[in-house]
């Protein structure tokens, strides 16, 4: 179980039925905590169906120090619907609190009352949520806010900040909505003032003086959209798909204002084709999709590689194959993102590991694409796309595009769009530039661009080699090691959203008597192989936790380095649990080192 850290590190889980205001209450809680100056990570789970009364849970982790994942155990559970919340009582830690509607037991079938499920070590807070709301507003509708007020009161959170967030949240509604909710909130606070309080948890004031006013609460997708906008994106083309649509929604809202172009296309093929067309014409252009859309886009990805056109494709993975699990997270489109398409079509793939990383990678993606004249894939997953984190963006835009340089031609020199240069990068002209007209083609071509098989080998080498320096692109973290330096018992290699749990695993394990290090790999193509291999050399065991069945990243790095790795894979639709990674880590420490010649070991940790 997690050790509470110094200072505040508290996780709330709010659970209710669609329509109970569960997500809204969670939203107010996370914004209030961020405004107070805390670091926040939050993730909401909705029912897959649009209508109905499915279960909603909002989990919000509030802490002084930067954290990297949600905790397995919540400190507080707020039930707005006992039937949905009962299965989650178990996730509340010992001495954690469970807040629930104090119904009369007689009204419910046996075992239906949540109090029957609360362990002796947990602290029950039953109170009249409905009654508080009705007394304050005349209606039961503000139950969620009354419960929120009670929780805020219980943990000494300053009501003024909540008032401000409530007012902002309901600013577009009639004034009475803000007033009612504020009254319901205050009534909740007041009710909590009369009860026994746990004295070890209080969320009054953050330890550090980090200014809440600079913090922006962003989802991964919001961060990608913001990065795109700050990089001066000029054109966005997209087709709706969960969990990527929220990028498109932001582009639709923002691009007209930015003087850019936005089109919802007829499918993903046209979305990427239009993106490529805009990129060819010199615009900073992007699209976003999920696995099924990426599958349709692979032919155009190859054309982008062949015609050497810069553009950006953001991909938010969900469960697959096929339509798969549209509302569940997975990391199983790695192979598709890196290898998808015909021929040898190496492209750049970046996989940020947290929300801030989404912002940075999206902000830099166009510059990288333009530098190497190639498509760049930004690979995230539903868990990262939808989770909230506090980010403090730089005050000054660091991603603004630099002016384009038109290739200069010597007198009588013929322009060669695909000239074989030392770096592999050729002078690129865009339509409208005089003396540089040319035709690009998806056929293999010579240096001018005329269809020809003659230089296929050289052109393949050019397209491949020109990307290699990207692993050291200035200002971009393509990989990074954390934890113990030198030789370690176990090294964990991670990518994408799962790296959050890997880092939490490291910090948990560091309190124990073992030597552990972790490495995050952000650039998945081309791979920073030298750094990965050097890291693996330091590790007796290498463990690769990831959310797919086969261990796609493990295959990739063991293939690239020829070194043995142990896979920990999971396809439950949920993020990995720190405890599970930790258990696998301990199992490895107790096993003999793998012989250096073995190439693959199959997963022990695979769960159905």
């Amino acid at each position, binding site marked *: 179980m997690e050790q509470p850290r110094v200072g505040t590190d508290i996780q709330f889980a709010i659970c209710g039925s669609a329509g109970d205001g569960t997500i809204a209450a969670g939203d107010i809680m996370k*914004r*209030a905590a961020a*405004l107070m100056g805390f670091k926040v990570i939050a993730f909401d789970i909705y029912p897959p169906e649009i209508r109905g009364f499915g279960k909603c849970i909002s989990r919000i982790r509030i802490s002084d120090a930067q954290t990297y994942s949600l905790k397995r155990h919540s400190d507080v559970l707020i039930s707005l619907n006992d039937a949905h919340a009962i299965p989650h009582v178990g996730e509340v830690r010992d001495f954690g609190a469970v807040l629930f509607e104090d119904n009369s037991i007689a009204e419910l079938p046996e075992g239906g009352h949540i109090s029957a499920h609360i362990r002796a070590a947990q602290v029950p807070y039953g109170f009249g949520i409905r009654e508080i709301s009705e007394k304050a507003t005349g209606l039961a509708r503000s139950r969620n806010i009354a419960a929120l007020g009670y929780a805020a009161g219980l943990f000494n959170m300053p009501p003024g900040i909540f008032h401000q*967030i409530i007012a*902002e949240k309901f600013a577009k509604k009639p004034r009475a909505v803000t007033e009612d909710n504020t009254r319901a909130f205050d009534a909740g606070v007041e009710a909590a003032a009369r009860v026994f309080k746990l004295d070890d948890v209080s969320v009054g004031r953050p330890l550090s003086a980090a200014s*809440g006013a600079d913090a*922006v*609460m*962003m989802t991964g997708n*919001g961060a990608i*959209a*913001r990065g795109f*906008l700050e990089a001066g994106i*000029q*054109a966005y*083309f997209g087709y709706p798909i969960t969990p990527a649509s929220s990028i498109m929604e*932001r582009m639709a*809202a*923002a691009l*007209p*204002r*930015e*003087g850019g*172009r936005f*089109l919802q*296309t*007829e*499918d993903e*093929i*046209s979305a990427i*084709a*239009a*993106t*490529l*067309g*805009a990129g*060819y*014409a*010199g*615009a900073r*252009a992007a699209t976003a999709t999920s696995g099924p859309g990426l599958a349709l886009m692979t*032919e*155009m990805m190859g*054309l982008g590689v062949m*015609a050497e056109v810069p553009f950006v494709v953001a991909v938010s993975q969900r469960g697959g194959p096929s339509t798969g699990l549209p509302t569940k997270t997975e990391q199983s489109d790695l192979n598709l993102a890196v290898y998808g398409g015909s021929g040898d079509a190496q492209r750049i793939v970046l996989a940020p590991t947290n929300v801030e990383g989404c912002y940075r990678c999206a902000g830099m993606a166009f510059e990288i694409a333009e530098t190497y004249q190639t498509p760049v894939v930004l690979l995230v997953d539903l868990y990262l796309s939808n989770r909230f984190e506090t980010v403090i963006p730089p005050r000054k*835009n660091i991603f603004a595009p630099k002016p384009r340089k038109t290739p200069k031609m010597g007198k009588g020199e013929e322009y060669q769009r695909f000239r074989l240069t030392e770096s592999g990068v050729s002078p690129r002209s*865009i*339509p*409208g530039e*005089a003396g*540089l*007209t040319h*035709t*690009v*083609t*998806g*056929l293999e071509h010579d240096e001018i*661009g*005329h*269809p020809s098989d003659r230089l296929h080998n050289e052109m393949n080498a050019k397209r491949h080699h020109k990307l290699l320096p990207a692993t050291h692109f200035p200002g971009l973290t393509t990989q990074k090691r954390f934890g113990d330096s030198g030789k370690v018992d176990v090294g964990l290699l991670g990518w994408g959203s799962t790296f959050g749990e890997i880092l939490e695993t490291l910090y948990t394990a560091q309190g124990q008597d073992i030597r552990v290090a972790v490495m995050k790999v952000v650039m998945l193509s081309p791979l920073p192989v030298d750094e990965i291999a050097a890291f693996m050399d330091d590790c007796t065991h290498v463990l690769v936790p990831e959310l797919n069945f086969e261990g796609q990243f493990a295959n990739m790095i063991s293939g690239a380095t020829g070194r043995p790795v142990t896979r920990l894979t999971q396809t439950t639709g949920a993020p990995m649990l720190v405890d599970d990674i930790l258990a696998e880590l301990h199992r490895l420490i107790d096993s003999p080192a793998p012989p250096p010649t073995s190439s693959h070991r199959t997963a022990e940790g695979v769960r159905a």
Partner: protein
Amino acid sequence: MNANAFKAKDYKSDVTPIWCPGCGDYHVLMSITKAMADLNRDPKDMAVISGIGCSSRIPAYTNCYGFHGVHGRSLALASGLKVSRPDLTVLVMSGDGDGYSIGGNHFLHACRRNIDMTYIVMDNRVYGMTKGQPSPTTEPDWDSALSPGGTGLSPFQPLVIALASGANFVAREFSGDIKNTTKTIVEAVNHPGFSFVEILSPCVTFRPDERAWKGAVHRASVDETDDPARAARRILTDDGLNTGILYRGKRAPYQAHVKDEAGDAGILDARFKV
């Protein structure tokens, strides 16, 4: 008298076409370069976009910025190019397989979207490049080794579909009639919105019967119209060999939707700002 700065040859590259001798596409190349000269636009400000097929090889034979892309996706690619670079004159060049089969859905949506560009399809009612398979416009009784006894399928009706889908300019020409084809292309480019020109362009190798088109095509006896209902009535009695402009519509072309409010990237996050 031609006061224009550019001549047709200024739009021709020195690349030798791969086409068979006698292929109708040579004439289309002549017509588009003549039309470009009449339009008097600098080649550097014109983009010629295509897919895959014999016909789709045409961009490299011009001196403009060309893009020979993948099979069936030329309209999608060109749409992105044109909306982000409205200053360019965009010609999209396709074949009946490229444009009506694999690219059929993009055709419908390009007509609907009405972006200001010109779509020219070189229809030879066969897949030339892949050696003679039937295409969507192939006659149902065209008997060949690759379609024994004919396909029995009713052919795709490009003009009807363009009209029904919202194209703003619809015409048919015959490649051998360079004079009229050139004129119609100029009209198509000058007309705002999405203009569609179907050009009957014989494949002498796999459809030698199409050599007979030369004597069979005829100028439409009815004038062009801006009334979609009249155009629709005319097209229903069409024999497929009528040439000329059928429809010149008045739909407003795609216009980038631009809001007045000035703003920056921060606007979106304003509601997440805490």
